[in-house]
């Protein structure tokens, strides 16, 4: 077996680490802007793909697999992980795709088909419609269901290609721009429309299947979201009763069993205030937030994926023990419209705290480039109680030192310290219904900054905005070559 990891960043690192400790030979792929990225060197072999969008290039990835003699491909999440075309192409090329069968991807990878399937096995769904190919069709569906509605990419998740539309006037632009975003992110511009349900919790179920049988591994709550992207996730969901949990597990199991699912998957639900649940979608891949489930179950989900894809057995049904919380550290200005930020990681020190796990794909000196997702790392804590996990995660984020790029570090702390989070009062609308303002920097900060720039010579031109410093002695040197 030799596994090619068709991804980048933290998830490529995550998968390569498991391949490493299992002793399975591995191959990383990388694009031009990623040539210095950490994932490249975590593999036994590496393969250059070229231009920045090549992680989405099926032919390029298959060629990399052929040239390196790989026998299997792990797609990570995002990029080609939910591309049925890619899964089929792998099968045709004689490669093991570490993910579900093309049949299961047909059933679930497409959100429209998944809704239809859910209805057929008696799983409750959010009111809406599967088919809307044009603005006119979409508008008709939206008016039938009634605003506000959500426009969603049929071909992928992660909040990309998703828009909340409050009324008809905003519809056309939202529909068209969601389509473009979906095309850029998933190479699939099809959309679907759903009634916008609120207030609701986002609860999801981790499942594993061996192609015949399946097990429910555990559940997560991921209600804290901004721009439909999760920021804080936890396992298990502390807010639902055992009866509700049982009902949700039963719905998830019914869907997974119906298609003879193979590998790891996540069934997502909205849970209303009465504990009624609505099926949202199945993600036929590893999720960003899978570590919280790993922390409470002790399962290595990547190892399970690899085993199941190669005909391995399902693990024993695990029990969830304690609580885990994950915070996504993003390069973004959380207090200013979550604008993505780029730059160089001038200083980076991760916290070392018992029961805290860091999944990252960057290192000090690395660049956060505009080409890819803004996530820098995931910081995950475990505790015997939810409160213990919360306090550990706060401590971890306070001890994390990152300079050079604006991040959401203090915003994550705002969320974790907020009374609503402590009380578990988390809904999908919570983050955006509140006003968040940048905390005041400690008083010494300005003093230190002025002192540092006044007393010492400027040594490095750094960051993407680097322009030659006019006081620098290096400016007067003219051009020269090393060794001359």
């Amino acid at each position, binding site marked *: 077996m030799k596994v090619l990891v068709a991804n980048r960043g933290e998830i490529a690192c995550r998968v390569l680490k498991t391949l490493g400790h299992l002793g399975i030979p591995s191959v990383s792929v990388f694009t031009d802007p990623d040539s210095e990225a950490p994932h490249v060197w975590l593999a036994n072999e590496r393969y250059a793909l070229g231009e920045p969008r090549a992680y989405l290039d099926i032919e390029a990835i298959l060629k990399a697999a052929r040239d390196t003699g790989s026998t299997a491909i792990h797609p990570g999440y995002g990029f080609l992980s939910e591309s049925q075309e890619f899964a089929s192409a792998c099968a045709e090329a004689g490669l093991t795709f570490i993910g579900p069968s093309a049949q299961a991807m047909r059933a679930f990878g497409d959100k429209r088909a998944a809704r239809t399937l859910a209805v057929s096995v008696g799983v409750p769904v959010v009111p809406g419609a599967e088919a809307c190919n044009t603005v006119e069709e979409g508008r008709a569906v939206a008016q039938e269901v009634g605003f506000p509605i959500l426009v969603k990419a049929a071909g992928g998740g992660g909040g*990309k290609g998703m828009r909340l539309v409050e009324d008809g006037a905003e519809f056309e632009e939202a529909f068209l*721009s969601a389509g*473009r*975003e979906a095309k*850029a*992110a998933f190479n699939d511009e099809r959309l679907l429309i759903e009634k916008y349900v609120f207030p609701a919790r986002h609860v999801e179920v981790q499942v594993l299947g061996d192609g015949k049988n399946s097990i429910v591994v555990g559940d997560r709550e991921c209600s804290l979201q901004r*721009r439909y992207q999760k920021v804080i996730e936890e396992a298990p969901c502390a807010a639902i009763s055992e009866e509700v949990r049982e009902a949700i597990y039963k719905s998830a199991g019914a869907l997974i069993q119906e298609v003879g699912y193979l590998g790891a998957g996540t069934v997502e639900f909205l849970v209303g205030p009465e504990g009624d649940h609505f099926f949202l979608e199945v993600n036929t891949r590893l999720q960003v937030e899978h570590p919280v489930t790993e922390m409470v179950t002790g399962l290595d989900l990547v190892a399970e994926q690899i085993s199941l894809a190669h005909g391995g057995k399902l693990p024993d049904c695990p029990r969830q023990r304690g609580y885990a919380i994950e915070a996504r550290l993003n390069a973004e200005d959380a207090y*200013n419209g979550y*604008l*993505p*930020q*780029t730059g160089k990681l*001038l*200083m980076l*020190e991760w916290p070392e705290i018992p029961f805290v796990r860091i999944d990252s794909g960057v290192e000090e000196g690395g660049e956060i*480039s*505009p*080409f*890819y*997702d*803004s996530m820098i790392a995931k910081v995950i804590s475990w505790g015997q109680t939810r409160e213990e996990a919360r306090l550990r995660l706060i401590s971890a*984020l*306070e001890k994390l*030192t*990152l*300079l*050079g790029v*604006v*991040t959401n*570090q*203090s915003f994550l*702390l705002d969320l974790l310290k907020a009374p609503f989070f402590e009380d578990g009062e988390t809904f999908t609308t919570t983050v955006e219904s509140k006003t968040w303002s940048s*905390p005041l*920097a*400690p*008083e*010494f*900060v*300005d*003093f*230190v*900054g*002025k*002192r*540092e*720039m006044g007393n*010492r010579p*400027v*040594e*490095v*031109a*750094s*960051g*993407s*905005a*680097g*322009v*030659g*410093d006019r006081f*620098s002695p290096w400016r007067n040197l003219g051009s020269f070559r090393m060794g001359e």
Partner: protein
Amino acid sequence: MPWVTVEFEEHTYRVPVARTNKGVWVGWPGGSVFVEREEEMAARAGSKEDCVIAPMTGRVLEVKIQVGDVVESDQVLVVLEAMKMEYRLCAPRAGSVEVVGCVVDELVELGAVLVSLEDT
């Protein structure tokens, strides 16, 4: 890049700092901020009112105006894509378009002036 010890108002702090040619990054437990050189700050402040500035490095998806167009305040002028998300950049005030500093598909840097406006 170093940690420095700072005496400030009778307290001693251990502070992470990182210098660039435009200023200094300074951290504290749970956050960080960029302390900009005064001349940089002054240069930026002068251009804010009349310009649309790229709020991040990204690719230009759409340019909705041409030189000479009369625009209203908050009208969408340029659509930028970064990290697979779209951002609509709006006119800071009403006026007419004096310069268009970007073209579709161009990769623009953070801080680049994309559009500048003049009085009609």
